[in-house]
């Protein structure tokens, strides 16, 4: 009985293992292959990982300062695809043109002869007066008549792929950063309640941000009327914008950008559609 049981179990093994007991060569092949490939694969993989780690883009280190003393507070890290994008003047140009087109009012308007008020009576008889023939007074060749081919309200805005526009934002910020013209403020940009524009002038003078050094743009998260009024009084040295009013053109305009960190983070996260893959939604 016991011998029969052992035979049955052997049969079962031979049927199911498929090659485990099908021959000596097969067994050795099966056993030897995984051992050798495993060792070589692990070494290759580790080398590859080491290389990748070596080549991996390192995050950018940026200093944050406290306003207005400009005391360095800490180093912060940003991914290189946000603050170290290579300069692409063509993309920047397209973005600036796109913004310019977007901001065109396009409200110029004239009246064509149909729109001009008045009677469409024939001014004089067709024949017999000795004068040239005329139609009505709305004719574009008459004074007070309609304007031929005049401007009419229209939309000048042009298109730009959103991902390209987002890139332009990050390229502009990266360009500033790479030139050392991006100053990140850790706290909020603000001045004391009873301070006057003299304070802004003094801050700009001591830190060399003024007109002699190419003016500076302050970018804040919150629009504080007191600060904005004070800065606008010394407009020859400074320009101030809240983060919602900033355009790519503003980022490129003055000598340097002095931004709150919160505003910078917000701008970067809002303009990362090309690097943030959107997950497909189940419908």
């Amino acid at each position, binding site marked *: 009985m016991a011998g029969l049981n052992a035979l049955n179990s052997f049969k079962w093994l031979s049927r199911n293992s498929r090659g485990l007991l099908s021959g000596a060569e097969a067994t050795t092949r099966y056993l030897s292959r995984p051992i050798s490939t495993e060792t070589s694969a692990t070494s290759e993989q580790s080398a590859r990982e080491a290389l990748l780690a070596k080549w991996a883009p390192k995050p950018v280190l940026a*200093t944050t300062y406290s306003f207005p003393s400009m005391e360095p507070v800490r180093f912060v890290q940003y991914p290189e695809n946000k603050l170290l994008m290579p300069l692409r003047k063509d993309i920047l140009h397209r973005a600036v043109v796109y913004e310019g087109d977007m901001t065109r009012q396009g409200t110029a308007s004239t009246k064509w002869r149909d729109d001009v008020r008045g009677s469409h009576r024939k001014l004089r008889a067709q024949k017999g007066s000795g004068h040239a023939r005329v139609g009505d007074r709305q004719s574009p060749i008459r004074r007070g008549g309609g304007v031929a081919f005049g401007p009419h309200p229209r939309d000048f805005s042009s298109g730009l792929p959103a991902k390209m526009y987002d890139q332009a934002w990050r390229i502009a910020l990266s360009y500033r950063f790479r030139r*050392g013209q991006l100053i990140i403020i850790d706290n909020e940009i603000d001045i004391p309640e009873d301070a*006057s524009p003299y304070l802004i002038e003094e801050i700009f003078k001591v830190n060399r941000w003024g007109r002699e050094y190419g003016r500076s743009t302050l970018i804040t998260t919150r629009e504080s009327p007191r600060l904005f009024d004070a800065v606008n009084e010394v407009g020859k040295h400074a320009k101030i914008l809240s983060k919602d009013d900033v355009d790519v053109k503003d980022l490129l305009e003055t000598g340097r950008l002095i931004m709150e960190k919160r505003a910078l983070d917000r701008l970067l996260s809002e303009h990362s559609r090309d690097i943030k893959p959107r997950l497909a939604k189940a419908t």
Partner: protein
Amino acid sequence: MRSSLRLLNLEAPASQRSRNLYVCSVCRHEARPRPFVARQFLRHASDSTPITERVRRKLWGTDNPPGLKDPYGGEGVFERKFKRGQSAPQENEPEAATEAAEDAVSEDSSYEPATTWEGLQRVGHLGTWSDLPPTKADAYTSFSLNRRLTKPVHLSLAAHQTAVELSLLHTLKKPLTNICDVIEHEQPVFKLIRNCKIQPKSSGQWDSAVVYPDKETEEALVYIFEQIGGAQEAAAEVATEVAPETAEDAELAEIEAAEAEDAEFEEEVPTTPSPPFFGYRDVKDKGYLDLSLNDPITKFAFLKRFSQLTGHFFPDPVIHQISSVQHVMKHVLAEQNPKPKKLADFLVADASLQSLPNVKIFAKKQKPSHKDEELGRKKLIDAELRERGLV
């Protein structure tokens, strides 16, 4: 021609200006108030006998005709005002009150009548911020020095001081940026720091890189730096007790005197009572240059402290490139001598570039006429132009 018909005399009258000084015609023109509009309203051609008077005399046939002297109601308002303005300084019988006032003025020998508005007290304004002086709230205290130190000696002193401070804090295992709470050390403490040397053990390590001149200094500095972030006053007191009195003090006085003479900063600030670093003008060793700044925390602390002491700003890309104290010094010194922006300045600065075969430097901008001159055709062109009457 009668005097009143002459061109308007735009020069200031002699009475209005100082007699001691010669004033040129241009200045006299500027000093004079604008000619009065009333000039145009003058009815009479001359001061002697107006035409109306002469007509009246002729009509009546006498030199003293009856009736009003001027049948047109006398001088107009502007005329009267203008006349008064003209004749006031020459009048011999002004009112007693004005005379007294004038006397008071003339008594003051230093008084000089102003000829322009410049320097006069401003009276009245529209209340805009620029009309009012800055208030207390407008005072700005910067983290770093308001002036940038530019002398290499000062920069090396600052770097050495920072290196000693940070390596001490490294050794004591204290937060490195705490040192920025001490804006300026007391002089004895600074002297102790300056006497220390930096000898990094291996590959620019900061730990125990400081070499103290003696045991006393070590104890004092360790004690002081233990206190940093806590009671600094106590530390300063101790330092004054411990500080060794050496012959350096006499030398220091000389240095300070010399320093006061040639204190040079990029931006001169009137409120600079003491020279930077108490007038010391040399660094004892160069070991601090080898210290490494690869560790971000150390780098941050070093640059923060260094910029606090020297007023220099380090932009992020520069910070990224810096990997040792040597790099910091190189960057700061290069800032003093920026690369010339104009090509001409660049070429003038370098003699080897001037000798290149394709480089020529002219004092003036070269125009086509210069080329004509060089090629010898300028004379021909000139002659031809003259012949045709074009020159």
